[in-house]
């Protein structure tokens, strides 16, 4: 039996006192604002301190989910969020795995390529946006010239919503693929070389080595990446702000929350700040992330137990 190291009697409680600062910090910085958001979602708060706040019950939720065409636009944004999540997660996951396997080879220059692929991650959303705005500049930018070579034209981020939305998916993957790659790379490097040698001696093909050795032993990395990709893409909004701004047919829920909370601007019209309404939208987003996150996590945990025991 292990000895208890914190004394006897009342002294046994001392670890809990040491935990208090951390818990208070968590309450103030993380849980507090989250709870406040859920309370604000039942008010008409504007976010302007000192402005009167009224308790309006479920009105924000009614408006978000049921009121007129705006609510149907919100459902469209919800659908778009799921589409964004699906494409970003699957492509980023696949590309990240592929690139990690490539830069895990014992070849010259792998460190350079690891750095190169990871570099976009360390750039902020504004820099990422600037790079891609220049790359996709529709009046003679590099991609415009490639399009022109094939006799095509595009406004890229300024074009029809579906097209602009597709380009944001591309940028999101480019911006975050490095993280996926690094997690896979860390996982690949934990797989003992002996297993590969044994498989080769047994005459396993490349695919058999991957499917029977690499893939099962990468399970923890697979789980981590899937969860991070799903949650990250569901919450995405910064690139939408930087690359597109408030454009019909392109909003995802995360951006909708920002636009409603801080008054999207159109021409010289600045819509009122509606942080109560934005809080309701963010609660809807929270439940979406929660449900998808929990379903995914449950599935992945069972899969991990099945594979690794």
């Amino acid at each position, binding site marked *: 039996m292990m000895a208890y190291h914190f004394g006897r009697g*009342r*002294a046994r*409680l*001392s670890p809990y*006192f040491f935990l*208090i*600062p951390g818990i*208070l910090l968590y309450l103030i910085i993380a849980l507090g604002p989250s709870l406040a958001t859920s309370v604000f979602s039942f008010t008409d708060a*504007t*976010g*302007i*301190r*000192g*402005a*009167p706040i009224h308790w309006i019950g479920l009105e924000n939720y009614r*408006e978000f989910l049921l*009121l*007129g*065409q*705006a*609510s*149907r*636009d919100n459902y469209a944004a919800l659908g778009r969020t799921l589409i964004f999540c699906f494409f970003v997660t699957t492509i980023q996951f696949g590309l990240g795995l592929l690139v990690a396997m490539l830069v895990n080879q014992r070849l010259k220059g792998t460190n350079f390529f690891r750095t190169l692929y990871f570099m976009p991650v360390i750039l902020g959303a504004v820099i990422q946006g600037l790079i891609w*705005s220049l790359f*996709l*500049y*529709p*009046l*003679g*930018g590099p991609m*415009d010239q490639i399009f022109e070579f094939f006799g095509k*034209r595009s*406004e*890229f*981020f*300024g*074009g*029809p*919503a*579906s097209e602009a939305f597709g380009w944001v998916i591309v940028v999101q993957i480019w911006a975050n693929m490095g993280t996926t790659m690094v997690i896979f790379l860390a996982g690949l490097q934990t797989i003992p070389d002996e297993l590969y040698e044994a498989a080769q001696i047994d005459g396993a093909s490349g695919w058999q080595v991957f499917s029977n050795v690499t893939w099962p032993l990468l399970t923890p990395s697979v789980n981590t990446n899937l969860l991070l990709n799903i949650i990250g893409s569901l919450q995405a909004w910064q690139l939408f702000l930087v690359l597109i*701004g*408030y*454009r*019909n*047919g392109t909003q995802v829920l995360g951006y909708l929350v920002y636009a409603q909370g*801080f*008054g999207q*601007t*159109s*021409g*010289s*019209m*600045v*819509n*009122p*700040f*509606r942080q109560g309404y934005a809080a309701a939208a963010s609660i809807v987003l929270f439940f979406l992330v929660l449900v998808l996150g929990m379903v995914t996590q449950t599935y992945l945990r069972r899969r991990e137990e099945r594979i690794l025991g």
Partner: protein
Amino acid sequence: MRKTLYSLAILLVSLSMVLSACASQATPSPEAEVEAPPEETMEEVTLRVLVHQNPPMVEFMEAFNQKFMEKHPNVTVDMSVVNANDLATVTQTRLTANDVDVVDMFAFTNAALPYMKNVEPPNWQTLIEAGYLLDISGQPFLNNYYPASIADAGTYNGKVYQINLGTVSYSGIYYNKALFTEYNLAVPTTWDELVTACETFTAADIPCMTAGGKDGWPIFVGAYGLIGSLYPDQAALVEGLWTGSIKWNDAKSMEMWDKMKVYAQNMMEPGASGIAGDAAPGRFASGAVAMFSGGTWYAAAIEAAEPDFEWGYIPFPGSDNPEDNKYLFGKYDQGWVIAANSPNTEAALMYLADFSEPANYQEFANTVGFFPTQPGATLDTQIGQEVAPYLENFRVGYEQYWVAPKGAGQYANPWASYFQPFGEFDDAQELADKVQEDLQSGLDASQ
């Protein structure tokens, strides 16, 4: 144990002090006494000024700040510049954080009118009601401005909170005089003439029209003349839309949508959506395009980009009847407000007073290209001369009146940018029906 409890008590006291410090910012006091003390008694102060990105204005403000600091050596001006699209957010954030003294704020517009139901009050109204803007009623420098501009753009519930610095028009087109001469084209006064001019330029491989479309709105703002030629009384247009006497898909409005499609697809240059707002004047001044649909505030930037470039400015001819095209639509533009919480109220009032001196204001109007809101001032620049014939027909535009009902869909506005290649729509009737449907949905929900 006593030590543990003692430590815990210290921790809790420290925490409460931190929280108190966070919460101890003064309650807004809009009714604060604002009488300025004699300047010699004033301490050293840093006056925090917030303006939006508008290159000529920023240039003027930097020079003005220098002069102001020389005149008032105890004041240091710390000016921040933000993108126009971010101004409202930054203003709200910095006002509530008590981190700013003087703010460049757009005129008080988009008020909820009696016939509008179920709408949110505009931000400026909320800021005033929350006590963030200083009541500057009775300040001597207000007398330098047209009473109408003070009343229309800076007054709420009988109190003055803003001095408005000028009006601008956004429904005109800059045209390249050399290109029009080279191709023997008359300056268009009707829609047909505009279409012909564009066809001529396009055939010569010269883009007809450009705009700073990266910011989104410049693409559709240029086409305000199309709305204006049909609905010259834009306040009545907004009321008609709210009351149902005007619909965006009725026969009259369809004429507008058909022309907007031509504007978006045949007149605006491909790629315009990538041009930043402050880069568009330079592109026009380079001579690469024949016309530039945009506001009068771009004139100074065009001149700065290419001083010898010859250009003119006309109202957007949206109708085939020249009489319908004589209107310029626009707005009261920016103004100055003072933070009610400002610890530097005296310096802020001096700043506004100095700015409002006729000589300084005259220089500001000429630099920025605003139509003056001071009676003695004139717009002596080229844009002033270009616009002078139309000023008697200046009208406040739709954007300044429109407030969307809750529940309205995202397409409930008459924007040309909904058309391909900038938007999804190719069919004018389909778009008109969608716009009306989105608006009607909000109107029905607000009943």
